[in-house]
């Protein structure tokens, strides 16, 4: 849990929740509210540790796909891990990081997107 920027997902009229949000959801409708995933824990679906990283990215870069359970609704997310000491099925919690990679070191225009976000920390 964090007091920093929320890990903002969007809930759609059919009940589905997507992270990141999209202008319209699976049912073709606009979102009705936001959900802060940083208030929840998640389960590791899979993970990898990448050694061939692009400019501005830490090496190695540990990454996981995780699944949150938001009151019975599954929500998938992807992000860096704090460690490679992790297993499929393990529980993780989001941990805020001000800068996940160095803006401007890669090809993406620095002003075109945010660079802060959440890493996942194994807790069980």
């Amino acid at each position: 849990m964090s007091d920093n920027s929320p890990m903002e997902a969007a809930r759609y009229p059919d009940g589905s929740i997507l992270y990141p949000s999209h202008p319209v959801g699976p049912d073709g409708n606009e979102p009705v509210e936001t959900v802060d995933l940083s208030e929840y824990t998640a389960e590791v679906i899979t993970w990898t540790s990448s050694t061939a990283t692009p400019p501005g990215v830490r090496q190695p870069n540990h990454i996981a796909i995780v699944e949150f359970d938001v009151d019975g609704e599954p929500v998938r997310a992807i992000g860096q891990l704090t460690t490679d000491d992790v297993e499929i099925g393990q529980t993780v919690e989001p941990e805020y990081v001000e800068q996940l990679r160095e803006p401007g070191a890669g090809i993406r225009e620095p002003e075109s997107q945010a660079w802060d976000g959440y890493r996942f920390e194994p807790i069980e």
Partner: protein
Amino acid sequence: MTQFGQRDSWIRELLAEAGQACLDDAGVDGSDVEHLYVSNMASGEFEGQTGIPNAVAHDLNALPAYTARIDQTSSSGGAGVYSAWQSVASGASDLTLLIGGEKMTHRTTAEATDVIASLTHPAEYKHGLTLPSFAGLTARRYLHVHDAPRESLAKVAVKNHKNGVDNPHAQFQKEVDLETVMESPIIADPLRLYDFCPITDGSAALMFCPESVAKEYTDEYVTIAGIGGATDTHVVHERMDPTVMAGVVESGEIAYEMAGIGPDDVDVAELHDMFTILEFLQSEGLGFFEKGEGWKAIEEGFTDRDGELPINTSGGLKSKGHPLGASGVAQVYEIYQQLMGTAGPRQVEAETGLACNVGGFGNCVITTIMEAGQ
């Protein structure tokens, strides 16, 4: 098709080389080409050269043909096949030249990886996601869920390198053994260096026309029996089963229906083995094997060149190389050679062939089914 590998030529020269070879082989004068498509992902980002369809049309004297660049990331070549087929099927063109190509090796691996990773969603890019890291994530899940041995992935690399030895255009005409693959450096755990295709320069070209026009030039040709394209989520983790590529499934079903055949009718296939795990996902998604059974096929030799369904007789992207915009065109060229009986030492018995070209990490997919002309 040009030599794939590290080339001194730049993108315009590579495209012109393959395009001229195709015109010469088909006996077509450049000025008779009505449409000219160039499949290319990122010549602007890699080289600072844009406007390449116009440049190549001028170099090949293919004026005043209608020209367009086709960008669908790694499936730009397949998308080019789709556009070229569409131009003929719609009646808009009687002679369409498709050239796919990419110039990449002047960039470092990190720079090239970043250019390719620029296709990702901002929520992925800021975490440093790359295409190889998606492959590592998927491979770990596949091995976990299907209780498959790690060695099965390595055997894809061994098989495709063995096939590539007999492809004079391949970047690596060299066998690798299982031990070499299993002991190579980790790139995206559990995948290692030899689970990945190389960074490559190269170009390939094809000529499309109605059968009536083809018969004016030759008695031997190949027909597009079916073709399908499909798109999956941009955000990869939103796919509830990471081991299923819906774009492969959907594009395959469309192509099969158009061709009036099923997976059992395919004699030879070129699949997009940018990473070894992709050969399993595509062979399952296209219905060659049940879900979770693709790894068993490689263990049993089913997909070897002398197996019941040879896959990647060209050496695949793994051995032949992966010049992004060229790969989908080169896949179709390999099937063309197999159906024409001109594949030399790589030749297998085939009347029907399939090529599956994947963009992003299954984000966009084109499946093409071909048959020998009547």
